[in-house]
């Protein structure tokens, strides 16, 4: 084949591929992913989960016979880039919905989403996104913001409830000391006030917060502060990679403190990377089971995973499964909208209000039942707390480590928080 004919056939192939992709695309969905920014450690499996799920949806007939055109973009966890993408999605090529990500960008978009009527199911579980009417008075109205799982604040409230019991059950006397740790960034800051208020109420002594960056680094100084302050319970508000740095440094400094992490602050990959430093960390799990867990819905998750991993050998961390659940909630809301007047943003938002204790079809036993109403966007206030258990060296394949039980996620407690009106929106 000559160079010229090679080029010609290549360009024809490109043209055909381009034309067929644009001809089928009918429902546009925007996707903000972080593959390269401050939260890329957990953003990568979550983003992959979203991409795989929509590819799987398209393979299985799409939404109401229409294919979904998922406009996936790595925005590097930067608000300006998210805003620029949003302008595109709210302008000429308007999307029916957005699969969002970070707290800073989601909170910045809240007002625009309401104005343009575009629902956004985010990776941010900031409690400020849960009050659609603003009636609670704690947060601005966020009628088009959704997320799947307990809010950051509720998860921390559950962890503190557990911590108070843990302190008593260990028979320790005096006031336990609680400290909030995280970057000075909207995401780690989101549950800070709620956590410190409840801690004080439960009889903790609240220490001044400690700041550490979203990126991995040397946080020995923070650990020495923990030690000298005599903290007993520390909340890690950042994502896994950064939290690991703290856990490792504290292990090395010999700090005896019980870490409790944010929902994005721990996963199987992190436990493998941190080794025995991750042993004993308490964290909330959004799904009823983790990868390979015994549930009817796990088959669907494995099928979706095969989209990007045909061999089926990759171990998918908890964030991947959460992404599958999140995407399927959005899919069913889009389904409802397509049947009831078309997949416009307004209809999709209404689609979220149609079911009580809702589990997407095929995900039984994986996604936790969730309920959204037009007054309350807290999908659940039930928090499953798990402890990571690491026994032994963690080199080797994650599948083996999990199978052998070197790394285990152990259920500690399920906390059913009351839906207090004074806890709504923060």
């Amino acid at each position: 084949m000559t160079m010229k004919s090679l080029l010609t056939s290549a360009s024809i192939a490109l043209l055909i591929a381009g034309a067929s992709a644009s001809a089928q695309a009918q429902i546009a969905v925007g996707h903000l992913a972080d593959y390269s920014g401050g939260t890329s450690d957990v953003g990568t499996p979550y983003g992959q989960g979203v991409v795989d799920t929509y590819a799987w949806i398209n393979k299985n007939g799409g939404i109401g016979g229409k294919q979904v055109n998922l406009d996936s973009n790595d925005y590097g966890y930067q608000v300006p880039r998210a805003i620029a993408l949003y302008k595109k999605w709210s302008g000429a090529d308007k999307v029916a919905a957005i699969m969002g990500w970070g707290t800073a960008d989601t909170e910045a978009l809240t007002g625009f989403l309401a104005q343009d009527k575009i629902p956004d199911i985010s990776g941010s579980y900031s409690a400020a996104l849960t009050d659609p009417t603003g009636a609670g008075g704690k947060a601005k109205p966020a009628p088009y913001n959704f997320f799947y799982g307990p809010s950051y604040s509720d998860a921390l409230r559950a962890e503190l409830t557990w911590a108070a019991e843990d302190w008593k059950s260990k028979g320790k006397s005096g006031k336990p000391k609680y400290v909030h740790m995280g970057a000075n960034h909207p995401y780690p800051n989101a549950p800070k006030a709620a956590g410190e208020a409840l801690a004080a109420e439960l009889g903790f002594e609240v220490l001044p917060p400690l700041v550490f960056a979203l990126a991995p680094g040397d946080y020995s100084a923070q650990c020495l502060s923990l030690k000298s302050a005599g903290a007993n319970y520390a909340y890690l508000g950042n994502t896994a990679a950064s939290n690991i740095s703290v856990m490792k440094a504290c292990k090395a400094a010999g700090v005896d403190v019980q870490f409790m992490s944010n929902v994005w602050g721990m996963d199987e990959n992190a436990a493998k990377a941190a080794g025995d430093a991750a042993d004993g960390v308490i964290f909330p799990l959004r799904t009823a089971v983790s990868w390979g867990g015994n549930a009817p819905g796990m088959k669907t998750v494995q099928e979706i995973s095969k989209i990007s991993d045909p061999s089926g050998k990759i171990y998918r961390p908890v964030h991947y499964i959460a992404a599958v659940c999140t995407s399927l909630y959005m899919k069913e809301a889009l389904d409802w909208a397509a049947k009831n007047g078309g997949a416009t943003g307004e209809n999709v938002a209404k689609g979220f209000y149609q079911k009580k204790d809702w589990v997407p079809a095929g995900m039984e036993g994986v996604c936790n039942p969730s309920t959204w109403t037009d007054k309350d966007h807290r999908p659940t206030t039930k928090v499953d707390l798990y402890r990571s258990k690491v026994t032994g060296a963690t080199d080797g394949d994650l599948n083996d480590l999990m199978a052998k039980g070197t790394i285990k996620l152990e259920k500690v407690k399920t906390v059913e928080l009351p839906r207090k009106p004074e806890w709504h929106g923060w």
Partner: protein
Amino acid sequence: MASPSLIPSGDFRTSYAVDTTIFPTTTSRNFAILGIILTCFAPLVFSEYWLAILIQIGIFGIAALGLNILVGFTGQISIGHAAFFLLGAFTSAYISNKTPIPVFFAIPLAGLVTAMVGLIFGLPAARLKGLYLVIATLAAQYILLDFFSRAEWFSGGSVPAMANPFSIFGYVLRGDRQYFYVVLAYVVVSYLLVTNLMRSRDGRALVAVRDHYLSAEIMGINLTKYRTLSFGLAAFFAGIAGALYAHYQLVVSNEGFGIERSILFLAMVIIGGTGSIMGTLMGTAFVVLLPESMEWISAELKGSAIDRALQLNNNLTFLREIAIGLIIIAFLVFEPDGLAHRWRQIKTYWKLYPFSH
């Protein structure tokens, strides 16, 4: 080297008016006016994507113009320009949110406030030169960014601040198509102002400081005054650009304006041509379009045979950043005098075509 200060033989100027004119010929003036008029039709023709890029070029072009006064005309250096840009953005958002002053006036006010702060951070320039000055301006970058992340009353702390849309006497401009004209107006005014400045007494003093500070001092130029002044001017344009950016995005966040953005501003000036006013705009266009064109290429590559063969996948993003770095290095090696110089060469070539020698 065809530097503008070297007058070719046969080019006689017999009066000061001719010597200081902005446009050497009537045709060049008419072309400039025609260009602006044609740009006015851009919102009617271009898609929103291209409009957004033009607006970005305009906004960053004003900031880069400020930096060019400092770097290109006065021979100083600053790697804290992004912090002043952000200060302008936060100030304008703050003024329009907390006071009854409309956005129309908040933008120039933000420029003035930023200029004041710029004068303060410019003080070390009176005593420091070269690498030491670089470090001093680096301090400005970090001090201001830290201030933004802590001063909740001013910037909202870690939470992004909201800015009002641009409004004149109750009429609110919405969307890129309307905002484009605001940016265009500011670009035209800023570039005219600086062109004018450079042919004035003060402008010539700045150039004298750059070319030989000792001779300039001997001729009676107050070095401290002009060095500090150039910092103030640079900060003023950064502040104006920042304010325009704030009311364009409607959200101001301190992300993405770290040292790497300051370096990008420097890249705009260097690529465009230090000491060239029109070059600044070309350099800005280059720096803004470069990541976009990389985006097109990576979008084309995505899922293609090359992508699969090399298993690029998510690494395409990183590849893009690497390519941007490489192109900038290649530019500095092969085009050290900037785009403005290349443009002049192209013009000369066609003027003399086909008898260039």
